[in-house]
């Protein structure tokens, strides 16, 4: 077999940060090749170099042994490689159809909008994306956007496709559909580079795997030759045990409760109560309303009916500060949207909720902020130059940890986390789930919303939602199959 894509001795620096230090990768023609590594290992940086968005400081990229085209020649790059980037490249003000065919709305001359919508519908149908082609992309949910991006990358017909964490925001069935699609592409001889922090996915669809650590290439091997724990060890540089969910006995006090909550079009008639020392999961397939419900609990949304009580205080609907004052900490669904202020430092982002405790008379003591931030950086293992680095410069997973730090910094008695481990590496995931469990052991009650069954294992019980209603309260000890069946509405 031939090497289809190769990067040699690539060095890429961003100011004082070296994102890639002589990294290399070689991908055989027709294989699905995984690239794994911890957050900040340089994976996305390599992607931007392999797709011609950034010039490596040193090193070269070869396609089928030929040097890569000039950076300015975008068309040549696009013939060689299509990509779903980790950062969204959807343009919110344009329709889905136009996003799908951006800069290729027509071959030449006029755009025929009707035909374009037709072509878009075809693409969406082919990849089973149930989205209106005429809708504005900005009105889509996060995962709908992700699906549109995937459909767009696949629709190019390029012989080489890069998928940078495509599944971080997808639920089970959507991931399955994506894999079906990828398998059929492989049968057609398409080469794929696949980046994910879900290592089981690597085993499911990839033939070989490259591991990066600390901006360097560590190993490349057929997946069959690399058992799970060795893979993790290669990524982390040390042996790491599988995460073990802890068991505990929930207390008696109800710290968070919602009565008769309803929001038109999203969910209705929800009663939920979370005790101290308890983790309650919220599961459901897409559009089940679980995120909407969680966002109502924290005050990001105002419910049409019902009340939310935190630690005995009735919280004014839609009032985040009031909820936080009552003892809430939370991780929102979309870190870019609601999670952090990109230009501000790690330290500042992590300490906003406790700003009033960092000094008297409305003052913030920079040294106390630094101390607190450094503690959070340590406990969550955030890879950063220090508390003063802007969050915008962090890798995706590390930015997520900053959001987590913000949720935990005030020692919340109620914790609501939505898809908390999206885009977070194996080890960090353990740290984050551990952090939730730590908080709960300290007496907090937690709500965990997730599409990932693994995350839900730490829950004492899982509320499964379907079409806006809680259909079942599943206690610990479920199997994947059972839970999925309930989520799909196949069992009542």
């Amino acid at each position, binding site marked *: 077999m031939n090497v289809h894509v190769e990067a040699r001795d690539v060095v890429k620096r961003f100011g004082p940060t070296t994102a890639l230090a002589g990294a290399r990768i070689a991908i055989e023609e027709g294989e699905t090749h995984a690239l794994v590594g911890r957050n900040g290992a340089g994976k996305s940086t390599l992607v931007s170099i392999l797709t011609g*968005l950034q010039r490596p400081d040193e090193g070269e990229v070869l396609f089928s042994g030929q040097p890569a085209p000039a950076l300015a020649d975008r068309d040549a790059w696009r013939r060689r490689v299509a990509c779903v980037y980790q950062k969204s490249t959807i343009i919110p003000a344009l329709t889905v159809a136009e996003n799908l065919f951006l800069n290729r709305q027509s071959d030449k001359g006029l755009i025929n909008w009707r035909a374009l919508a037709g072509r878009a519908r075809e693409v969406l149908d082919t990849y089973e994306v149930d989205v209106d082609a005429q809708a504005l992309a900005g009105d889509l949910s996060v995962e709908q956007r992700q699906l549109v991006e995937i459909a767009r990358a696949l629709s190019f017909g390029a012989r080489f496709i890069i998928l940078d964490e495509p599944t971080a925001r997808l639920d089970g069935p959507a991931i399955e559909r994506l894999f079906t699609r990828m398998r059929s592409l492989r049968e057609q001889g398409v080469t794929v580079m696949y980046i994910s922090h879900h290592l089981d996915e690597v085993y499911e669809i990839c033939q070989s795997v490259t591991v990066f650590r600390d901006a360097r290439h560590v190993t490349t091997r057929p997946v069959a030759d690399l058992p799970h724990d060795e893979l993790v060890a290669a990524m982390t540089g040390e042996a790491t045990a599988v995460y073990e969910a802890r068991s505990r006995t929930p207390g008696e006090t109800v710290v968070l409760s919602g009565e008769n909550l309803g929001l038109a079009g999203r969910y209705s008639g929800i009663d939920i109560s979370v005790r101290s020392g308890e983790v309650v999961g919220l599961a459901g397939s897409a559009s089940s309303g679980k995120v909407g419900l969680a966002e109502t609990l924290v005050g990001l949304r105002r419910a049409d009916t019902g009340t939310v009580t935190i630690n005995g205080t009735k919280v004014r609907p839609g009032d985040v500060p009031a909820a936080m004052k009552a003892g809430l900490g939370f991780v929102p669904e979309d870190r870019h949207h609601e999670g952090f202020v990109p230009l501000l430092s790690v330290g500042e982002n992590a300490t906003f909720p406790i700003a009033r405790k960092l000094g008297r008379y409305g003052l913030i003591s920079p040294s106390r902020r630094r101390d607190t931030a450094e503690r959070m950086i340590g406990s969550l293992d955030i890879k950063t130059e220090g508390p003063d680095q802007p969050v915008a410069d962090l890798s995706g997973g590390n930015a997520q940890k900053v959001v987590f730090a913000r949720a935990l910094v005030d020692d919340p008695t109620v914790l609501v986390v939505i898809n908390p481990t999206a885009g977070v590496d194996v080890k960090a995931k353990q740290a984050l789930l551990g952090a939730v469990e730590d908080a709960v052991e300290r007496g907090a009650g937690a709500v965990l919303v997730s599409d990932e069954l693994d995350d839900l294992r730490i829950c004492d019980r899982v509320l499964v939602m379907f079409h806006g209603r809680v259909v079942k309260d599943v206690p610990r000890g479920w199997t994947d199959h059972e839970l999925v069946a309930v989520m799909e509405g196949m069992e009542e």
Partner: protein
Amino acid sequence: MTTLTAPAPRVRLARFRDLTLVPVIVILLVVGAVLDPTFLTAGNLTNVLQQQAAISLLVLAEAMILIAGKFDLSLESTVGTAPAIAVMLVVPVAAGGFGIGLPGALVIPLALLIGAAIGAFNGFLIIRFQLSAFIVTLAMLIIVHGFLQGPSEGKTLFQLPDSILYLGSALWLGLPAAIWIAGALFAAGIFGLGYLRLGRSLYAIGGNVDAARAAGIRVDRVLYGVFILGGTLAALAGILETGRLGAIGNNQGVGWIFMVFAAAVIGGVSMDGGKGTILGALTGVLVIGLVQNILTLIGVSGFWQPVIYGAIILIALMISRIAGGKAQD
């Protein structure tokens, strides 16, 4: 997968989002007709269109630049300077020229070229040096106006070649040529930004420049083009205004830029880029023109006129906000 609400109404709403000012225009027409009998005559409405023709070209230019996510304040200075320098290159020293004496027929191409050059220089500073568009074009607003004031020493140029007067003063099929020209250019703009790949790329660039680059759009080249086109349109606006007024004063175009932004923004063009349409910008121009005309006709006291004028803009803004249903930015 997801349950979607019926897609049809959403689409229709999006289409009409350009037209949120139409109710405002209707109200203005009715109010104007009630307040003054002259208002709804063909003659008066033609006057309104002719008066707005030149400034509307600036709105067209600014709308494109804003949609592409940039900013150009210097357009207003180009309105005076481009035709003035072109004229000075052509007329003799006695008429205020440089004494170079290029042929009079060249004056329009020269003016357009000067406009394009100003646009290109703006583009160069902003794109090449990655400077803030606001402040670069603010400095250029001052500099370009200085290039009118300096050579003319503050004097009005009134001995102009006939060629530069023609477009702004001729009648074609009974209507001022300026109206035809502005109409044609707006049609081209609506069409170009609606149906051409190049036009659509402005939305992509303004909406998410990284995504646009990733999609293979030659961002820098397109932005250069937009600035150059903007400068050229401003020069053309200057030519039309010169023909309408019959001379080039030192203040030609000065103070227009605020109204240009007002027209574009109440017409739905976002200051943040990527949003708005040329048709919407056109409705913005019409609203401003009608308001000014009505205030003139009813002869509000000059002292209080600004208050009424500003208040009407605010009300138009609210109506279009309510009709459009979305927060503005």
